[in-house]
């Protein structure tokens, strides 16, 4: 927050949810259209089957699983900003906690949805639970995703309680259904000392619990690949590699969201250049960490160049996937590092651009983790059709993937319309503490 102390009334007035502006309406409309296109594509997939996708016997995990890994990665941001920084008693991150938490919740919801989309027979989804084998990392993933969702929801809800009281009190002009929702969610919150004591203890417990669960979700997702003996996946490094990547993309997403909310809701007094400066340092550190794991992940197999790895690696470094690979490395890591390494690069606009680079680079990185390996099986089929040896998603796959991304953004957009995107009560307390 800016050094200038603000009155609680001013803070409340500034941070209360605002109606969509014209730009907000256009943004929401575009997202809804993309979601409808995705829903139509999914309807076609349900009707015709997975044949409408370009996934075949070789690439059976295509853009959907890449998207899933991306969503899982981005959801880690909740535990980074909220839990890690809160437990470390870092106060500057207060305005960013709710942004981080809603990104985490929406990402984990769409990670679950995209997995169901990838299933050829989604009506058999329940069989995962009825007939699932405890020995399979897929079941571990189902368990940790469910657990992480509930914990993220609770971590979003507990700190929201004092703000719900403020929302109920300042509900002039809100639609009736919204007022009823506020009352249902938080009318019992009186802000008594005992309630605060219980709530603060619960938040601390949540922060302690969510960190191992968040690590578990990313490690287990990496094990979906690493427990398979295939070039590009057969690595003991994968858990740490995934976690470091998840931290980076999550932090990048928060930077983008910070800039957008700051601009859209005129929150310059609350999300200041100081916050961008701090987040910039974090993103640089995380980008270096992820780059380090990438060097480990590619340099060592490339040094040994074992026969099964050879075609996979040469394809990445200088073959069919080389443009995408170097794009992901440079746009997703090296250029953002160069931008944010300098103080001038840690200002809002350069940070926003670097944040977008990190997120886009991360999406393509997930695609590169999933697809090229599948195109290089250990036991290639004889007389395999040409369509098996190349993969480019069909329009249905693109529409569904983009629809899911738009859906996640829509959840965040609607949340910011209904609830304060910066915690009002915590900001007032922080402001009083500074004063």
């Amino acid at each position, binding site marked *: 927050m800016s050094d200038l102390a603000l009155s609680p009334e001013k803070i409340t007035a500034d941070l209360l949810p605002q109606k969509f502006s014209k730009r907000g309406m256009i943004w929401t409309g575009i997202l809804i259209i993309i979601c409808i296109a995705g829903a139509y594509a999914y309807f076609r997939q349900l009707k015709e089957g997975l044949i409408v996708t370009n996934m075949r016997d070789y690439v059976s995990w295509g853009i959907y699983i890449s998207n899933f890994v991306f969503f899982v990665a981005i959801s880690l941001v909740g535990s980074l900003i909220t839990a890690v920084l809160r437990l470390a008693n870092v106060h500057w991150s207060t305005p960013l906690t709710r942004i981080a938490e809603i990104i985490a919740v929406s990402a984990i919801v769409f990670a679950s949805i995209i997995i169901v989309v990838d299933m050829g027979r989604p009506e058999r989804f329940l069989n995962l639970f009825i007939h699932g084998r405890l*020995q399979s990392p897929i079941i571990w993933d189902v368990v940790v995703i469910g657990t992480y969702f509930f914990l993220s929801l609770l971590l979003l809800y507990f700190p929201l309680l004092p703000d719900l009281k403020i929302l109920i009190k300042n509900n002039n002009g809100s639609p009736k259904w919204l007022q009823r929702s506020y009352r249902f969610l938080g009318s019992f919150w009186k802000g008594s000392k005992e309630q605060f004591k219980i709530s603060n203890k619960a938040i601390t417990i949540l922060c302690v*619990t969510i960190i191992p669960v968040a690590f578990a979700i990313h490690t287990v997702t990496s094990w979906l690949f690493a427990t398979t003996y295939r070039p590009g996946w057969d690595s003991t490094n994968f858990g740490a590699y995934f976690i470091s990547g998840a931290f980076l993309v999550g932090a990048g997403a928060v930077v983008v969201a910070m800039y957008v909310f700051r601009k859209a809701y005129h929150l310059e007094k609350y999300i200041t250049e100081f916050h961008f400066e701090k987040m910039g340092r974090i993103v640089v550190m995380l980008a270096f960490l992820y780059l380090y794991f990438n060097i480990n992940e590619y340099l060592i197999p490339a040094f040994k160049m074992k026969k099964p790895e050879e075609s996979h690696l040469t394809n990445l470094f200088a073959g069919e996937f080389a443009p995408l690979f170097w794009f992901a490395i440079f746009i997703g890591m090296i250029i953002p590092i160069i931008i944010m390494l300098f103080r001038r690069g840690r200002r809002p606009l350069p940070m926003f651009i670097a944040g977008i680079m990190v997120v886009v680079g991360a999406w393509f990185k997930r695609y590169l983790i999933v697809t090229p390996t599948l195109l290089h099986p250990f036991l290639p089929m004889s007389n395999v059709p040409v369509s098996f040896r190349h993969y480019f998603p069909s329009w249905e796959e693109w529409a569904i993937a983009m629809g899911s991304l738009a859906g996640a953004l829509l959840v965040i957009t609607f949340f910011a319309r209904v609830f304060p995107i910066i915690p009002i009560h915590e900001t007032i307390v922080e402001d009083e503490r500074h004063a």
Partner: protein
Amino acid sequence: MKDMRKIKILVLFFCLLIASYDIAAQNDSTKPELSVTIHHFVINNSFQYLLVETKTKVGNKWQPLKRQVLQLYLDSNKPENLITKVMTDSDGKAKALIPSGLKSLWDAYAIHKFIVVTEGTSKEEETITESEITKAKILIDTSNLDSTRTVNVRVMRPGNDTWVPLKDVDVKIGVRRLGGDLKIGDEETYTTDSLGEVSAEFKLDNLPGDTKGNLILIAKVEDNDQIGSLSIDKIVPWGKIYKPIGASDFGFGDRSLWAARGKAPIWLMMMAYSIIAGVCGVILYLIFRMIKIRKLGRKEIYISAAVNV
């Protein structure tokens, strides 16, 4: 004039050349080469059948003649001697059994003739192929003297009132296995002597048999010009007792990471369930804390309402 004559001769020569080529081409298209082979099989001296193989020459290659109708006759191609009418399969082959109605004719003579008539079509002409077979039988016996196991086989043909030995017939002796017949000794084939007999030492010690240690010995004569193909088998307890391998022998029944759902390792179950229980416990505790906050809030509402009253 001389030039004119030369031209006339040349024109005549070319006309003849073209005409001869056309005639040859017509002959080729109307009469493709056809090959019909008849095989007669007798199994265990009781069951017999015919196998007819047909081929046609396409270009320089022999190809199976598919879906060709064949009429099979015994001894003469009269309607009453018709064995059956069959159609060749995709390999150009057709099988037929000799019907019981021809038993008296079969029993009456020692030598028979099989006649195959291919039905004429627009492309092929009717052809008749014959094959002569002498009735024969094959017998198998075993002996086990001084730990030497021997297989004795006799091949005979009908004589006047009785069966007489058939010499100089090649016989294969083996043990029936899943992938084919395994020869019992060093020789590929054994030739019958003047008594129509062959003997072969059984050298396959420690060969796995069935669950009782039984092996199936087989003796066969293959595509003999005179007697066709004959085979006979005999069960002998000369193999090692086979113990069936169950799922448990491979460890599939044990608890392991690759076992079925109900066979998850105990350590994994304990670890996973204790982690799940621990995290669910935390979530439940937090939900109870939320209920407590709700209760505290409601209590405060009642107190303030009471104070106002």
